[in-house]
């Protein structure tokens, strides 16, 4: 009998558990029923940030969160122009090598004043060889920064000087016209020296997280969500309208979109390509420019890609518009040059791309002719084992399949497909163990240089085996002068060489597709992928 009772108890307790589970489903969840004065919104930055220590981070999800928790010397406006933020004023020496910043009175969210030494402390931390920050090279514009990071100079030699609590003086290696924009980036943010020294691992949890931006951290449930609230100590707090900003950390685009459509999320980036048509038809899809190029690399050390005519022929023989409309779908721009639009040139109102123009046309007849000249008329003699390398996932696979098909139909050449796991693929590319490889590049800053200096001889990001002395010389020239006109001309010259020699085949320029509820206003999206919620409002 006792045993029977045990069984009954078990059955009953199960019934209770199941009952609890079922009763939990009464409400439909979501619904931002906010009190009148409160203004809350949520966004998915794409992933759990690897870290929110501004100096140690280098990714987009990290930058999106940090941008809203911190404030640097400058902050980018809606046209990506640097506006004075913590810097009340600044002066630049005539040779463009010395910047002197005067700081405004401002506080950390724990009440400490923000000092010039907080900047120096943070920047030196990023450069410290012991700290081994991945993005330390973002600071290599500063005098002796690279040498110090490479253990070839002392800390005191680095060109960052604290004149007084409110004055910071920075010496540069070479004139850098975009240095002011750089000071708006996370690597250049200050951290609270006093607090950080007292609290190791201060940046891994909300209780010890101290920042100086429009919002301050309230809670951080790892891999789940970060809740930030308005920071009343922010110097420009009167212009911050949101009372609460939640970052829901959802890595799977599919799950995030479901959450968005179910009302659990107010906005997100990285829209799955499968949903783009549907969202566009429904009018929910939005997009902003994104400073990036999707392209294929040719391994010029391997036959048949050692012949520029082959590279040119393949580049001309695909139909970018169809590829974008039918496969990629996001409303990207067909690329007939390497550097994307959206980067200002010397002349006001003109972009680098407009000045440079297109460097080639899609022309199947011409492509066939070039291929025949190279010794492969109608694809005859074409080697058997040429393959397109790409990393598994996203739409790289479908793009590669479509391009494979276009080359086959237009030129009569057969290529295979090789998919590799993400990091294996990177290694193959870097070791030149491929024939043709898919690639993408997102700019680090708004200047053509972030695209153009990739292909210098033996550059780490070249990865094609291509080398051209004139190209190298042009890039060197552009890097050594502060004169914008001279720089831009040199870079246009370099791009022309790149697009004649064609070690890379541009396919399209990125756009940033996103969705956001209609009641979300005033978010500012930069072409580098950052999102600024400082001026965002919720208007229901």
């Amino acid at each position, binding site marked *: 009998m006792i045993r029977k009772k045990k069984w009954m108890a078990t059955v009953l307790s199960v019934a209770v558990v199941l009952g609890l589970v079922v009763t939990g489903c009464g409400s439909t969840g979501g619904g931002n029923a906010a009190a009148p004065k409160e203004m809350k919104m949520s966004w998915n930055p794409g992933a759990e940030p690897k870290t929110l220590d501004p100096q140690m981070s280098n990714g987009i999800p990290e930058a999106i969160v940090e941008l809203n928790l911190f404030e640097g010397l400058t902050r980018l406006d809606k046209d990506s122009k640097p506006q004075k933020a913590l810097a009340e004023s600044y002066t630049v020496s005539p040779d463009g090598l010395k910047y002197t910043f005067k700081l405004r009175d401002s506080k950390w969210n724990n009440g400490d004043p923000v000092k010039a030494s907080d900047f120096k402390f943070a920047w030196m931390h990023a450069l410290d060889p012991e700290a081994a920050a991945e993005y330390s090279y973002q600071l290599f514009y500063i005098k002796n920064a690279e040498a110090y990071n490479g253990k070839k100079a002392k800390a005191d030699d680095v060109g960052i000087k604290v004149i007084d609590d409110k004055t910071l003086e920075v010496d540069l290696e070479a004139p850098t016209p975009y240095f002011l924009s750089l000071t708006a980036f996370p690597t250049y943010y200050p951290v609270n020296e006093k607090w950080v020294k007292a609290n190791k691992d201060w940046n891994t949890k909300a209780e010890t997280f101290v920042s100086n931006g429009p919002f301050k951290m309230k809670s951080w449930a790892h891999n789940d969500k970060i809740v930030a609230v308005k920071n009343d100590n922010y110097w420009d707090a009167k212009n911050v309208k949101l009372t609460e900003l939640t970052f829901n950390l959802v890595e799977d685009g599919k799950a995030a979109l479901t959450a968005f459509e179910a009302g659990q999320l107010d906005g997100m980036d990285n829209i799955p390509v499968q949903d783009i048509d549907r969202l566009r038809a429904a009018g929910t899809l939005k997009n902003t420019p994104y400073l990036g190029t999707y392209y294929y690399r040719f391994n010029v050390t391997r036959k048949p890609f050692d012949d520029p005519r082959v590279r040119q022929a393949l580049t001309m023989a695909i139909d970018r518009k169809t590829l974008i409309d039918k496969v990629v779908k996001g409303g990207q721009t067909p690329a007939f040059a390497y550097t994307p639009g959206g980067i200002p040139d010397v002349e006001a109102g003109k972009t680098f791309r407009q000045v440079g123009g297109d460097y080639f046309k899609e022309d199947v007849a011409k492509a066939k002719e070039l291929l025949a000249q190279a010794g492969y008329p109608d694809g005859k003699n074409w080697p058997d084992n040429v393959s397109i390398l790409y990393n598994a996932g996203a739409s790289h696979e479908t793009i590669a399949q479509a391009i494979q098909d276009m080359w086959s139909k237009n030129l009569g050449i057969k290529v295979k497909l090789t998919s590799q796991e993400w*990091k294996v693929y990177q290694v193959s590319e870097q070791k030149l163990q491929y024939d043709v490889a898919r690639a993408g590049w997102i700019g680090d800053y708004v200047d053509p240089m972030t695209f153009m200096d990739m292909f210098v001889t033996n550059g780490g990001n070249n990865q094609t085996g291509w080398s051209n002395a004139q190209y190298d010389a042009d890039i060197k020239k552009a890097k050594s002068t502060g004169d914008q006109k001279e720089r831009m001309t040199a870079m246009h010259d370099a791009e022309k060489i790149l697009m004649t020699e064609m070690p890379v085949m541009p396919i399209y320029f990125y756009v940033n597709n996103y969705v956001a509820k209609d009641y979300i206003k005033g978010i500012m999206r930069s072409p580098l992928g950052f999102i600024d919620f400082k001026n965002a409002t919720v208007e229901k």
Partner: protein
Amino acid sequence: MARYLIGRILSAIFVIWLVVTLTFFLMHAIPGGPFSSEKVLPDQVIANINARYHLNDPLSKQYFDYMNNMLHFNFGPTFRYEGRTVNDLFAAGMPKTGALGGLATVISLIGGTVMGVVAALRQNKTADYFVTFLATIGISVPSFVIATFLQYYVGYKLHWFPPVGWGEMKNLVLPAAALSAYPIAQITRLTRTSMLDTLNQDYIRTAKAKGLPGYVIVFRHALRNALIPVVTFLGPFFAYILTGNFVIEFVFNIPGIGQFFVTSISNRDYPVIMGTTVLFATLLVTFNLLVDMAYTLVDPRIKLTGRKEA
């Protein structure tokens, strides 16, 4: 018994050591490192990183350092999340994975047994066919498909439960249902078959002949014996609950530890790969031991001795 246990624990430790060693060297054979990325870092930055994380040490030194730290329960820093340790990651994720796995365990064990018994008692009647149908779905559809269907149709279209996220009890319902689909089906099938077997045994007929009420026969005589095959399934079952978690946690965005199974490898986050291996191997070894001990409880014919016989 005590001797048996000590033997098993010693062999468990050996197993874990072997698994850890194997994983360590296999992991370093994978191309690409934790800090390789699409944007290639300058050489000196890579040198600094390698120095900081001791990635330049000879592999044998790294191995012995790791083993030494492991003995002190120090599983090292994660390479992906700056400033956090493997212990931090697991401490944050374990309760979530535990809650999900626990609920799925309860649902599958109890649901599966009940459904199996019902099907057996109503053999070839509507209830039997219905249960069999439900059970076959669980074994015939991949879990990521089940999870996707539940998320989209039950969560999003019908609004019964939140489709994504974590935090409240109701968030657990769909993931737990998706996670238990496969084991509940297996347990139902096992219980049904062995229940039918048992109900045909002579002692059950004797019990019936004695005029014992039906529920006494079922619960007291039949079920206990019918559960033996279910116990044999528990080992694979726990392994499934632990590893099957990845798909479910990914689809429903649950901040547990199941994700590390896959993400640690794709990130080449060496300490997390090792930590995951140690954790899962330990859990599996423990569960297997518990399952073997459970045999003796349900089946008095089995005795634990120093040696296992076939």
